[in-house]
């Protein structure tokens, strides 16, 4: 019964979404203002309906109702309860339902919080958002019904993919989706602005927290994904430039460009057409991230071959969404006349460079991901575009851009004088050179890359401290006065400085992990030891461990650094009988300076266990840097631009509200 109820609720949500978008467009056409009122109610209704449907599916998983196909395929009565629940989105149908829940959730929150937004703009936004909801609930109902029954019901389920039985992965898709789906709101606002033929600083201010929220969730989601790859997948790294990762990076890059240009639009009422275009691109790139790469074209052609209707449906949605939005853009973009002007040397210009490079980086990742497919389509040749390609193109491109980070924030709006700025930043330049030289002298391999990475990180960090010091006039005025200035500094600025500082830390961590890493592989028998520089790794023993739903072979290692005993750690190879799948658990012995990272493979007769040991300097700071970047995003969301709202053009704003 619960399954049928869930399905019924989903059908209702689809109908409400469909009706709502239709009625709004009809109402706006006939000039009926009644639509303004029910647009909000309809948005909340969609959320409640999809939320209830999701609750139904969760219930079915919780009670292990194997008469429901997805439950039978993806759950098992002996699975830990918490993973029964996370199993709801550990499969295609459930994850799509979660996706729809997030979509209506965002719309619901928008309906709840949307006050003081011009009624036509917000109502049009709801209309576009409802169209998206209608499209995706239809996708669920017609191609991926999570409530389909299975008859006769099997006695037990097929288990969940063992790779998904992990807290990191259980939380990783929801975060990622919260990011992806968040860009639907900015997309809808952009479409609404184009239909209206007007977007201004006020529009940017309304959209900014949504863009930042989406971007922050996406950042956290990518971070969780990277840490999952690092700790669980056990292949020995945190980022591999594989299509699945690239898919999440593309909307992130577009989103990063977007939040920067949005700032220009909000403060200076210019770069409007470009900002709107970024808003229109971030969401489709998210769709590419969710669907094309994950389930349709790149990773698994077979998934597409088995369910061709899903691929066609998604491509159709994508074509309509992007094609429609871009056609509208071509038609209306010229209505977006900028008013603010700026000189070649100004904050605005530096952010134009930022957007240019980020857009180029995004395009680069896009082509890098899809080019092999393209080559295969037009010829019989096959290509691989792997990490070395991105290291040779993406890294220098983005690395060069990052030089601008401390400079950009210190440049004045409209027109800036470079002279005083360069003098102010001189200590940062000196620190940068010193750090680079020290890193070059100390490293024993990849010295140039390591030196450049260190120099860049120090430049960013010290530059930002100088920036902050000058904003607070620290040490130039009494400390209390500086503190008062700190309190008065808008959260958006704090967010910017914090996030950029996180970037500096991330650059240092990436430098450590990639330039200074050392690795060693060897076959080991219990009692054998492996020496890597100062480190000695001893395999103490290998034992079999039986757990609830898997059997593991556990290698127990002991690590010494010189004379110092760093303790023991265990790497596992797990076997999940129900699925007949093996997974690896890497052993990580972390500290602030370096991670000792060990994986163990299948034993080979007479030679023992293949053991792969990595020393990753500064790996810990990857997560710290990422967390600080996310924190910066969160701080900026909290900034509602209160003061600037009051100080800027009060008269003009009243006119707009009255319209």
């Amino acid at each position, binding site marked *: 019964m619960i399954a049928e109820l869930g399905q019924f609720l989903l059908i209702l949500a689809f109908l409400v979404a469909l009706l709502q978008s239709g009625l709004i467009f009809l109402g706006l056409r006939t000039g009926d203002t009644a639509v303004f009122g029910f647009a909000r109610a309809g948005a909340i209704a969609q959320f409640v309906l999809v939320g209830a449907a999701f609750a139904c599916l969760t219930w079915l998983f919780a009670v292990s109702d194997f008469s429901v196909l997805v439950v039978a395929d993806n759950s098992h009565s002996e699975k830990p309860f918490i993973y029964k629940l996370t199993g709801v989105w550990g499969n295609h149908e459930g994850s799509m339902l979660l996706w729809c829940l997030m979509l209506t959730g965002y719309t619901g929150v928008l309906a709840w919080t949307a006050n003081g937004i011009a009624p036509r703009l917000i109502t049009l936004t709801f209309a576009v958002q409802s169209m998206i909801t209608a499209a995706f609930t239809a996708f669920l109902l017609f191609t991926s019904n999570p409530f389909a029954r299975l008859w006769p019901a099997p006695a037990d389920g097929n288990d969940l993919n063992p790779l998904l039985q992990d807290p990191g992965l259980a939380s990783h898709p929801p975060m990622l989706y919260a990011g992806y789906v968040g860009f639907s709101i900015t997309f809808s606002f952009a479409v609404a602005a184009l239909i209206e033929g007007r977007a201004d600083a006020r529009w940017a201010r309304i959209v900014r927290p949504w863009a930042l929220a989406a971007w922050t969730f996406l950042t956290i989601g990518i971070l969780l994904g990277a840490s999952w790859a690092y700790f669980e997948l056990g292949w020995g790294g945190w980022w591999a430039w594989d299509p699945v990762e690239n898919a999440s990076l593309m909307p992130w890059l577009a989103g990063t460009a977007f939040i920067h240009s949005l700032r220009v639009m909000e403060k200076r009422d210019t770069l409007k057409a470009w900002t709107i275009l970024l808003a229109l691109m971030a969401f489709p790139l998210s769709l590419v991230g969710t669907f094309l790469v994950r389930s349709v074209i790149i990773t698994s052609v077979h998934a597409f071959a088995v369910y061709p209707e899903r691929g066609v449906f998604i491509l159709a949605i994508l074509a309509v969404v992007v094609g429609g939005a871009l056609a509208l853009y071509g038609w209306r973009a010229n209505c977006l006349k900028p008013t603010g002007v700026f000189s070649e040397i100004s904050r605005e210009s530096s952010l134009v460079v930022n957007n240019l490079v980020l857009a180029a980086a995004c395009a680069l990742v896009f082509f890098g991901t899809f080019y092999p497919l393209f080559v295969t389509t037009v010829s019989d040749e096959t290509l691989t575009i792997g990490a070395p390609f991105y290291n040779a193109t993406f890294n220098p491109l983005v690395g060069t851009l990052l030089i601008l980070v401390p400079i950009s924030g210190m440049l004045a709006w409209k027109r800036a004088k470079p002279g005083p700025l360069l003098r102010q930043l001189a200590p940062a330049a000196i620190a940068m050179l010193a750090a680079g030289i020290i890193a070059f002298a100390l490293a024993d391999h990849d010295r140039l890359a390591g030196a450049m990475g260190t120099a860049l990180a120090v430049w960013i960090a010290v530059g930002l401290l100088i920036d902050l010091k000058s904003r607070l006039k620290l040490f130039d005025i009494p400390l209390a006065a500086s503190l008062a200035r700190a309190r008065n500094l808008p959260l958006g600025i704090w967010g910017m400085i914090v996030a950029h500082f996180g970037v500096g830390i991330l650059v240092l961590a990436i430098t450590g992990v990639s330039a200074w890493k050392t690795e060693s592989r060897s076959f080991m028998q219990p009692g054998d030891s492996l020496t890597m520089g100062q480190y000695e790794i001893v395999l103490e023993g290998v034992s*079999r461990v039986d757990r609830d739903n898997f059997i593991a072979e556990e290698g127990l290692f002991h690590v010494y650094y010189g004379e110092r005993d760093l303790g023991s750690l265990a790497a596992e190879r797990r076997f999940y009988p129900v699925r007949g799948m093996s997974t690896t658990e890497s052993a990580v012995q972390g500290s602030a300076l370096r991670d000792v990272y060990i994986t163990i493979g299948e034993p080979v007769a007479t030679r023992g266990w293949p053991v792969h040991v990595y020393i990753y300097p500064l790996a810990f700071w990857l997560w710290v840097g990422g967390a600080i970047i996310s924190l910066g995003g969160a701080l900026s969301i909290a900034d509602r631009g209160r003061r600037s709202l009051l100080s800027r053009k009060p008269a003009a704003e009243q006119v707009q509200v009255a319209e």
Partner: protein
Amino acid sequence: MTRFQTFIISLIAALVITMPVLAAPGPDETLEDPQLEARAMELYGQLRCVVCQSQAIGYSDAPLAGDMRFVVRERLLAGDSDAEVLDYMQDRYGDYVLMMPPLQANTIFLWALPFLLLLVGGAIAFAYVRRQSAQMETAFSAEEDAQIEALMREEGRE
């Protein structure tokens, strides 16, 4: 599931999990010479495990990846240069095996792309910034300058 079934399954699992993979004779996983070993490690990152999902052989547990690593070590011991090792693999597995696509007719566009993007995008952006900054003189307004000043003060940069 009965206890007996569980027992059987774990028995099978135990067999699977400890089933030995046949050892490859010859150079062991690690090369004696640390410099050769470092080159081998670098090359492992340059070659794709052809049975994996976009993974380099250095990171893969697949048996074939192990065999490919073996060949890399064998070629290095035979005195091949890094480029020769890559060529050797490319001769057998095609462009597909190279993690870094070689510069050739079908990848010119790909390799030119970063430069194209920066050049074309840069030209458009530069032209735009120049054209609109030309209005700086004519579009001067005291009101706007006051706004900028307020904005800078708000950001702590007066």
